[in-house]
């Protein structure tokens, strides 16, 4: 069972309270596709991913980025049982979408960096540590149902 300190809960809440899903979601996913181009393998049906500009202006990617980020809300609302909260999504990603679970970490690194860019120095080392702990729990939960 993951143990969260009060400081960690406060940091994570604060970060999410300031989050504009429609801005950060698209930025995060498009950044992942640009920085780690092999992740584009999962987006064959998403239209033009030819270069960074095309990816950043692609409306299907933007919409999907928001969807993925909204998925994190489930963990935020169930911080004490993230494992079970994501059981269904884990099966979806492993059996239907067939996403290599290593990709979850790549996306979570991009999300951390997008949030750092938005929050600036307010994204303190302590905030970063709490947020990355949260994301690593999510990533682990999403990877659980892979067999």
């Amino acid at each position, binding site marked *: 069972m993951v143990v969260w300190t009060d400081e960690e809960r406060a940091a994570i809440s604060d970060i999410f309270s300031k989050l504009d899903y429609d801005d950060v979601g698209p930025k995060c996913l*498009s*950044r992942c596709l*640009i*920085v780690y181009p092999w992740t584009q393998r999962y987006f064959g049906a998403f239209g033009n991913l030819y270069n*960074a500009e095309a*990816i*950043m202006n692609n409306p299907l990617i933007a919409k999907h980025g928001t969807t993925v980020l909204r998925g994190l809300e489930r963990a935020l609302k169930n911080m004490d049982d993230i494992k079970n909260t994501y059981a269904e999504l884990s099966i979806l990603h492993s059996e239907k979408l067939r996403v290599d679970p290593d990709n979850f970490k790549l996306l979570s*690194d991009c999300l*951390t*960096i*997008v949030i*750092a*860019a*938005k*929050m*600036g*120095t307010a*994204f303190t*080392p*302590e905030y*970063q*540590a709490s947020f*990355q702990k949260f994301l690593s729990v999510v990533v682990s939960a999403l990877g659980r149902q892979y067999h």
Partner: protein
Amino acid sequence: MLTDHEKELIAKIWDKMIPVASDIGAECLLRMMTTFPGTKTYFAHLDIRPRSPHLRSHGKKIVLAIAECSKDISSMMVTLAPLQTLHAYKLRIDPCNFKLLCHCILVTLAAHMGDEFDPVAHAAMDKYLSAFAAVLAEKYR
């Protein structure tokens, strides 16, 4: 694989960091040790509290080495030869930790550069730092 444009971008960014090398370096190290506590094991001999002179001077060394190398990326193997030897035979830091510091360097750059640290700059920087880390670990075995 870095394009000429990416190499220019990387050199430009690090050039701006040179005057604030202690601040940036200390922040990178602090972020790494806070987020990945296992990395603290390499700093038992230093005072690693925030704003400590040790952290600032050590951070400065790291930033200046990365900045220096960015001025002529094609000569990385030559420029880094002494640091390769240092890390392989004296420091013996497990190379998996290089990735952790690289990530924290990216976070620090993002926090200071905001929107200017766009996906293209991020991709270029990630590639550069990965190459730097790989060269640093080359003499390990």
